[in-house]
């Protein structure tokens, strides 16, 4: 994390107080909390890779292409299965590509949807080019402006745990943003879309 980045984030809601954490550590902590076969949609790239590394649950869907669509996919699952909680794990660059989806989520207001945003301020997988969230854009403020009232920065690991617990129990939609470091993901996913999709449908009880 560069000095200039931390200086330029001071105007953001909560972000200036947020500790820079590690994506894989937080992903592990998140997955450990999932006790009710919650569905998890991993966004393209490192969000996906760390989800894979945290344990290959049958309720995980690993999105291999279609950058920006993790939250829309999660919304679709949440609509189809209102009794199951659904989480989307998305990077800052991916969310910036499809910000409009936050307005759709806010309009439909599914209680069973939680959006996790890993904000490292870079397009990590393409070589670390800066995203707008590194300097001027605050993703939590944007989410609130879109109508997601339950949107917050995780101040540290314990705060992240608390926010996730609240999202899973109190109902959403909720957006939790975490500032994360630039460490690469610890593994990569399988690359077979049909198998990933079929396993996920079995995990959701749609197929046997």
């Amino acid at each position: 994390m560069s000095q200039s980045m931390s200086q330029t984030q001071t105007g953001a809601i909560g972000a200036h107080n947020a500790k820079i954490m590690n994506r894989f550590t937080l992903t592990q902590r998140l997955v450990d909390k999932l006790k009710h076969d919650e569905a998890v949609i991993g966004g393209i790239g490192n969000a996906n890779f760390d989800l894979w590394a945290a344990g290959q649950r049958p309720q995980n869907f690993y999105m291999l292409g279609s950058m920006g669509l993790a939250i829309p996919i999660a919304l679709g699952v949440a609509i189809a299965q209102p009794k199951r909680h659904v989480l989307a794990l998305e990077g800052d660059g991916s969310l910036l590509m499809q910000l409009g989806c936050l307005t759709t989520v806010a309009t439909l207001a599914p209680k069973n949807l939680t959006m996790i945003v890993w904000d490292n301020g870079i397009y990590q997988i393409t070589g670390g080019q800066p995203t707008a969230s590194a300097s001027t854009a605050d993703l939590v403020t944007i989410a609130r402006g879109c109508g997601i009232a339950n949107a917050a920065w995780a101040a540290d690991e314990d705060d992240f745990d608390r926010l996730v617990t609240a999202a899973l129990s109190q109902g959403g939609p909720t957006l939790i943003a975490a500032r994360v470091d630039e460490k690469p993901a610890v593994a990569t996913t399988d690359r077979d879309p049909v198998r990933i999709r079929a396993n996920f449908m079995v995990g959701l009880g749609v197929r046997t």
Partner: protein
Amino acid sequence: MSDSKPQVWHEIVLASLKANNVKLITYVPDRVLRPLIKALHADPFFLTFATTREEEAIGIVTGAWMGGMRGALLMQTSGFATIPNALASLVCPCQIPALLFVSERGTLGEFNLGQAMVCKTMRPVLDALGMENHTITRQDELAFILDRSIKQAVATQAPVAFILSPLLTGGKVFAQ
């Protein structure tokens, strides 16, 4: 279709969706599709809502299918031109039977050059992706094409595009 009075095209589309248990309807608005969208909103069988982009609707319909709910997208020709990446990297490789309804602009009296040009990209893209697609010009063929093709999409786990020609819908005419 037991009703004895002749139905208009949008009533046939709605009836075909309902008969095939397609409950989720996403759309980016289009003037020609307006009566269909209005009727879908008015029918509590359907969950109908607008998305900000067609791509977003692709994601939602994909998620819903994986969760056990059938879904469709309504859009116009220019909207189709925004989704080839989502089709090629999500819908086609994951074998998602997304149902695409495209209100055809750009032909048979188009007044907007941009619409006329983007229209020319649609069928080559569909063919390049190997996607089943039907251009529907006749109301007497509409119910058959929709019913058979929706069933085929589900059975073969493949998306399908229905291009609704101005010959069917009347299209959009130049404002005098």
